């Protein structure tokens, strides 16, 4: 018998293609489920069951599980299951009670927190004011970068059985924003100081879940904390977390139902799960944003000249970057994350108002026609390399040739950080977490405080002063004015230039879980509303 292989192959292929490519791809989840929320859990569903969550990477730090030194969003998410903070942010970036049931701002330098009386650590010991005071002091003593974000704390005093007072040496508006993130979690200070709990190896917090198993870079198991005062209201009993580095594999896990809830960096995931009717995909806007390093420290580089940096800054079309690399989800931003209240208007930045002719003139004045610049970025996510390629095209128009190098994470870090020599690469692409207050991330532009930028950023006393001023100004019109000035100064100095927000995509199986997902997230916490989650397919 003669089998017509090519014909059979073509028929099979045609069948597969016709099945794979949906005729029309519905744009999933364009509208919010409720103001500020992409999804709201159905709390009438019965509690209990095991939730399977797929994340892209694990906690990693030499200090292990100590929340104080956690620097990545995934660590904040995972540790946030076991630890709680004094205050929390709500979906509009307002501050709401956490372990502090209320607080009073007595003066710009004095904050009084009244603590919950029923908070209990997962070892059964009730939380005391000593723990709160000690946690803040231990964070200040640590070598953590978050100690910088805490601001100029002069003292933490116990002013009542369940009350602490924080006094500042200077006004600091972002204090609540700093206290709301996992690195400022309240630790079991008594045990930690006595040495009976090693914070780097064990997570003993007041949070809703206790980690019962962890294989580094593979998986976590969290179970409900029976000591939690709200234990009865916690929906999911057990959370199984799988760490899956490969995006395509996480997509597959949602498609075949292995994962109930998964995170994606690739904004296209919104469309890539089309054809899986049980999968719902939502975008989550972040205060995190991508930025470009324009290395000013290398005297032989054209970027040593401020005019060239401004020209490069102005030549970049953020809207196109967002459209092509982030499926249009990235929002153009200044140094104050545009998704936060009080942020400056990116359309009014100096670079945004320059015409093509003005850009060319800047370059010509600096003698920088037909220049070559090297750009280094990293490969753990797909977006940075894509952004690099689009920027390469955009700068080509102005006679700037970009040579791209996409390296792994350690090589990228070696290029820009951790030595005294000026970095050799001209341009870098990375992102900062934007946190919950518009002035917080701008600290990384203050060269006196953020010493890790020393290899590529010269900075200026004026800019440093503006950063400090922005952190001191109380909420209101005058602060907005300072933030606008700050944005303009960052934009003109153009040493780290904000590009656009870094959105995330969350997918979940409607037949497995009913989650609550906020539209805007400030600290990369993908499971912020985990206690509200309910399982739908509990058998």
């Amino acid at each position: 018998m003669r089998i017509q292989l090519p014909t059979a192959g073509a028929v099979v292929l045609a069948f597969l293609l016709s099945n794979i490519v949906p005729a029309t791809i519905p744009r999933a989840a364009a509208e919010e489920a409720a103001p500020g929320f992409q999804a709201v859990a159905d709390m009438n569903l019965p509690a209990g069951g095991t939730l399977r969550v797929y994340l892209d990477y694990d906690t990693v730090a030499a200090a292990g599980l100590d929340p104080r030194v956690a620097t990545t969003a995934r660590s904040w998410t995972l540790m946030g299951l076991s630890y709680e903070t004094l205050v929390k942010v709500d979906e509009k970036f307002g501050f709401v009670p956490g372990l502090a049931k209320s607080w009073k701002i007595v003066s710009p330098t004095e904050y009084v927190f009244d603590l919950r009386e029923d908070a209990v650590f997962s070892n059964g010991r009730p939380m005391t004011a000593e723990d709160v005071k000690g946690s803040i002091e231990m964070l200040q003593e640590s070598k953590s970068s978050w100690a910088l974000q805490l601001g100029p704390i002069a003292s933490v005093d116990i002013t009542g059985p369940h009350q602490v007072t924080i006094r500042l040496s200077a006004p600091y508006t972002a204090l609540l924003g700093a206290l709301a993130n996992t690195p400022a979690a309240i630790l079991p200070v008594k045990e930690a100081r006595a040495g009976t709990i090693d914070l780097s190896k064990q997570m003993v917090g007041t949070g809703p879940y206790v980690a019962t198993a962890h294989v580094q870079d593979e998986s976590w198991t969290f179970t409900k904390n029976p000591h939690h005062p709200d234990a009865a209201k916690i929906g999911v009993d057990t959370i199984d977390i799988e760490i899956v580095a490969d995006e395509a594999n996480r997509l597959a896990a949602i498609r075949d139902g292995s994962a109930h809830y998964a995170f994606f960096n690739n904004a296209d995931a919104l469309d890539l799960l089309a054809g899986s009717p049980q999968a719902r995909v939502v975008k989550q806007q972040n205060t995190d944003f991508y930025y470009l390093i324009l290395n000013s420290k290398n005297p032989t580089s054209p970027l040593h000249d401020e005019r060239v940096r401004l020209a490069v800054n102005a030549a970049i079309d953020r809207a196109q970057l967002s459209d092509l690399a982030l499926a249009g989800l990235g929002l153009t931003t200044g140094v104050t994350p545009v998704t936060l209240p009080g942020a400056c208007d990116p359309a009014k930045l100096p670079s945004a108002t320059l015409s093509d002719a003005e850009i060319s003139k800047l370059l010509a004045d600096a003698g920088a026609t037909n220049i070559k610049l090297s750009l280094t970025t990293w490969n753990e996510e797909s977006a940075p390399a894509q952004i690099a390629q689009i920027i390469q095209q955009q700068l080509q128009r102005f006679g700037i040739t970009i040579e791209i190098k996409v390296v792994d994470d350690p090589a990228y870090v070696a290029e820009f950080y951790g030595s005294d020599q000026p970095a050799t690469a001209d341009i870098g692409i990375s992102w900062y977490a934007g946190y919950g207050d518009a002035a917080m991330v701008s600290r990384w532009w203050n060269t006196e405080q953020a010493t890790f930028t020393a290899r590529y950023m010269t900075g200026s006393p004026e800019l440093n002063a503006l950063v400090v001023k922005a952190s001191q100004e109380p909420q209101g019109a005058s602060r907005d004015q300072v933030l606008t000035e700050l944005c303009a100064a960052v934009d003109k100095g153009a040493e780290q230039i904000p590009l656009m927000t870094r959105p995330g995509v969350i997918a979940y199986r409607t037949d497995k879980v009913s989650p609550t997902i906020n539209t805007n997230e400030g600290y990369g916490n993908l499971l912020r509303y985990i206690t509200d989650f309910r399982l739908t397919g509990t058998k």
Partner: protein
Amino acid sequence: MRILRWLPGRLFSAVIVLLGASLLIFAAGRSLPGDYANTVLGPLSSEEARVELRESFGFDRSLPEQYVLWLRNALEGDFGLSLASQRPVREEIASRLPITALLAAMGMVLTIAIGVPLGVYAGCHVADGRRSAATRIVSTIGISLPEFVVGSVVVFLFSHFDFGLTVGTFVSPAEDFGAGIVSLLLPALVMAIPCIAATARATRNAVIDVLVEPHIAAAIARGETPGFIIRHHVLRNALIPVLTLTAIIMAYLLGGAIIVERVFNVPGLGSYLVLALGRRDYPVIQAVVLLTTAIFVLMSLLVDILTGIIDPRVAVTKAGPGA
């Protein structure tokens, strides 16, 4: 026994090879760009914290000193602590090696179970021109299928359509052996395709070689049935070239596991190596690569010894197209 004459020399060269490999591995590990302390502590960390960490792992000593120390400890089975997890590398490997070993073993079983019968069948039907041509083209296609292409397509197809096997869940064979085997079936098959093709081809060639030998003609003349001839004369003699190929295939499976494990999210030694590389987790990188090479060197030694026992005439050589 002839085997005793070459075995000591063969053992000696295996030791030399492993020593050379260990030096190469150490040198490569330490030439990786990027610094562990920076990578783990993050760019926002302070310089003192980094120095402290480097010292705590002995990275401030001279390189030859570090190498000797590493090798001596490695010989005692102590590979130090993983920089990322702070657990002994030996424990980390102990939980992952069985998975990769099982995956490779499944690949091997599939290879032999499918490849050898196919090869024997093809070898016995060379006279049929069309079938012979089909064998050639199919086996060549099999050899030419890269696992990252096939794997990506398989992961998609098996998740998008319901074929009864899931690709998103890995079940550890240590917890549930049966389910573990099932979850490793697709990656093992993807990995085995080129090996099946190569084995089928080698078997076929070996069978053809044996079939023309006089003692087969004699057996036919004696009136023995074809099945009996294949089982008793052909297979035994055709075994040797196939056996030689298994060492190469084992290396391929161990190496190929890196990509397949990544594509299918199997937490074995291969994906662990890629992860460790991305972390500059030197103790892990060095231990995993050393272990992989050691296993491979031992496997080829074993194959040589087996070959020597089955057919004492065979000189010890490894040959064939590399995979």
